[in-house]
């Protein structure tokens, strides 16, 4: 089998997605053997993107000219581009206030020095380049990352289920926090794959994996409102990882 050449890069992010890879302690040696890792600043002294690369795996949102430059360089030298994690796929935590002015946000943090910052609203990768595959999650699940790498060895991508977190939550026999404890659990709207991590330890789903394709956003909103949560609080929670919900969507 020909060894795939991969590049791993991080843009505006917390490095958690790349760390997820480094957290595969069991598998790391095998990965190091089966792939040629061409560019991976977090783990490798190699400063140049030279290409050609089979697969570029990119973490983080795009929010500066230098992010964009790295992204473009990678896109131009790779065959497939994989968005790794919620920031790369949906914008993620840094994009939660994208509806507010970037300038004001910067000003709040950096005062007058803010003007010198070259930055724009954090955007998911697909706003700028074509992505061939995405692994969601903040951080992504080890299992999905490994399944993707395994599929790459065979020149393909894996197929992940498209149901919401609730499905995994119920089959794990968790207590439903939405029904039984009236908590603002986002499970019904969020893409599964984490095996309902949070409800399994008694914490409501905060939605870190972004929207599931088939989400009845409007009905969930009605339910939360009926349970007495103020609308602004619901919106604030829902936008934590994905700022662009369509609150009218029913299917």
């Amino acid at each position, binding site marked *: 089998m020909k060894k795939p050449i991969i590049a791993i890069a991080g843009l505006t992010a917390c490095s958690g997605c790349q760390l997820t890879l480094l957290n595969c302690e069991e598998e790391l040696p095998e990965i190091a053997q089966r792939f040629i890792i061409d560019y991976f600043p977090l783990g490798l002294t190699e400063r140049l993107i030279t290409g050609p690369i089979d697969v570029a795996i990119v973490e983080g949102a795009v929010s500066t000219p230098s992010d964009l430059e790295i992204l473009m360089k990678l896109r131009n030298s790779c065959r497939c581009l994989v968005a790794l994690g919620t920031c790369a796929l949906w914008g993620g935590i840094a994009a939660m206030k994208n509806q507010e002015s970037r300038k004001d946000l910067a000003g709040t943090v950096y005062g007058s020095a803010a003007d010198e910052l070259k930055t724009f609203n954090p955007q998911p990768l697909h706003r700028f380049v074509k992505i061939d595959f995405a692994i969601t999650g903040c951080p992504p699940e080890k299992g999905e990352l490994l399944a993707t790498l*395994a*599929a790459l060895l*065979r*020149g*393909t*991508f894996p*197929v992940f289920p498209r149901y919401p977190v609730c499905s995994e939550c119920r089959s794990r026999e968790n207590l439903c926090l939405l029904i039984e404890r009236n908590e603002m659990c986002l499970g019904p709207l969020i893409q599964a794959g984490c095996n309902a991590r949070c409800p399994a330890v008694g914490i409501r789903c905060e939605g870190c994996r972004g929207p599931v394709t088939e989400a009845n956003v409007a009905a969930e909103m009605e339910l939360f409102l009926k349970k007495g949560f103020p609308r602004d609080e619901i919106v604030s929670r829902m936008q934590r990882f994905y700022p662009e919900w369509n609150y009218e969507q029913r299917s």
Partner: protein
Amino acid sequence: MRNGRDMTMVPLPATIIGRKELSADTTLYRLTLESSEKDRFDFNPGQFVQLSVPSGGEVPLSLAGPPLLHYSFELCVRRVGHVTDMLHHLLPPNRVGVRGPFGNGFPLSEWTGRNILLIAGGLGIAPLRSLLYALLMRRGEFGEITLMYGAREPSAILFKEELAELSGRRDMHLFLTVDFATEQSPGGLACNTGLLPTLLRGVNFSTTGTVAAVCGPPALYRCLLEELQGFGITAEHIYLSLERRMKCGVGLCCHCAVGDLFCCSDGPVFRYSQLKGISGAI
């Protein structure tokens, strides 16, 4: 149970022994089961197999060749997604897995003495090719045989060489049509332009004692069935092959129900009369 393995549940190893590109996205594969199983593979036209591409998954595919083809069988596959994509990277002598054959197939023995009209739209030619060869193998038992085949455009016509050969035969009629004519010639074939229902209205074929076998996308069924009945072919005598999502092929996974019928085990070939009252069937 064959050779200690249950072929309805566990795919048997099969080898790709031939591969021919029919169009930009469609390829004909010839496969053979591995030695000890070879002689066991018999099927009815209209039946399908579940083909496994290791680490990709499994998809239902119609048997597209004549039955009893020297220990091998043919599949005509369009590249549309995950599994079919992986399949398109395979070459002889790569190995795949096969379960089946499944489903009912066309009831040839009930058709003895009748005129037979085959109508294929697009990839629907796959099962009908198998049916046609089976009919021709028993040519004497049937009346007039007509094949009408429509494709989107000349380059999408599959099996061009075979069609050219068939068009020379005197014991059957062949009519081709394309939705859009383009510069490209359909490879020396006589070809109409227009949708299949237009073709149906425009050519002569026997309508008495005729059974029709139709296979194509849902849109084709919607516009064709009324036409056929208009020619006096009753719902009882129109056979359709349906496509549904299938995961098991044997009536367990429950994705393919049409009304109270399973497409995989009660079908995929149905008489139109069976489907008439079922909303969403077609």
